[in-house]
């Protein structure tokens, strides 16, 4: 029995190892390439699918809270008609970062199963903690997602309101602060901010 199986294996191997007589080398190379493209493409598409806003708001936790709030803000409706979707701000566009973020997102599936934020009340109670994660992420990557759309280089501060221009000149262009230090709550309502200082405070004279 065993020898029979071994025999078969040896035969298969011989076929496999023999130089191809039916297919040209060119075909094989191309075929391999195509298969690779298909595989990679499929992987990519799966990732893209989870990147869509529709995916995010397929969970009521995300639809009833962050999405409903986003709809009121300038990132959803404005005079230029350009809008930001959830993944624009929440999933880094770099490949490696992207996968790292997806791994972290399994926490959300866990949260879904155990209903960590399945009511508005639970969400509000947990909001400070969740927001804190986002703030530290954006702080650590120097507000990468914001900068994917707004670049400090292309900011013409002479076209900004004096108030904004002065802030950006003093703290942003000097690299002292990053977007999220000053622009918290730009897309959602804020949790209790007691003890969270605005980006421009505590920079001048330490108290």
């Amino acid at each position, binding site marked *: 029995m065993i020898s029979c199986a071994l025999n078969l294996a040896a035969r298969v191997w011989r076929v496999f190892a023999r130089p191809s007589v039916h297919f040209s080398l060119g075909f094989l190379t191309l075929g391999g390439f195509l298969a690779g493209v298909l595989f990679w493409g499929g992987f990519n598409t799966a990732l893209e699918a989870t990147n869509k806003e529709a995916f995010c708001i397929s969970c009521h936790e995300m639809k009833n809270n962050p999405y409903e709030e986003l709809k009121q803000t*300038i990132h959803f409706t404005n005079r230029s008609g350009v809008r930001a979707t959830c993944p624009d701000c929440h999933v880094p566009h770099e490949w490696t970062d992207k996968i790292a973020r997806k791994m972290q997102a399994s926490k959300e599936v866990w949260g879904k199963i155990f209903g960590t934020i399945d009511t508005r009340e639970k969400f509000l109670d947990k909001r400070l903690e969740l927001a804190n994660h986002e703030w530290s992420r954006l702080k650590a990557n120097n507000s990468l997602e914001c900068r994917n759309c707004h670049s400090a280089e292309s900011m013409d501060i002479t076209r900004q309101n004096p*108030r904004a221009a002065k802030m950006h000149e003093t703290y942003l262009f000097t690299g002292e602060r990053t977007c999220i230090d000053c622009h918290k*709550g730009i897309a959602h309502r804020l949790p209790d*901010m007691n003890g969270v200082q*605005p980006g*421009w*405070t505590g*920079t*001048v004279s330490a108290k």
Partner: protein
Amino acid sequence: MKIRLTFGALALAAAIPVLASGVFAADAPKVPSGPHPITQDIPAEPMGREVTDDIKKVRNYADQPPLIPHAIRDYQIDLNINKCLTCHDRKNTEGSQAPMISVTHFQDRDGQTLGTVSPRRYFCIQCHVPQTDAKPIVGNSFVDIDKVLGNGALGGGKEGAK
């Protein structure tokens, strides 16, 4: 005959409010979306543009709450955070270089001075409002106090709207 006359007089009397309101209606401000038959669709006028040039406007009288010269879209003012105070609170003005809220804002209604902003002053936009470039639809005969006193030279010489 007499009865008919009385009826006529009564009818006339009843008509007076209608006639009078007709006269008033002619005087009423011309707003396209103003009084019109409910069956008719009247396009709304375009909204005024916000004035957000950060230029302080003159106060029409000394204790007028100053106008807000900048955008306040989506500024959250609730139990969790007061976005205005992130710049205008005493502790934040050094970094923001914004004017500090007036000392009156620290007093409660009994005149007691508190350590922080008084609850009755917390909701900023009850008194302070931004402006748009909309033209007033009703005239206004307000006269600046300096003009009344005849010493406009001291400044604050903004003309009352005519």
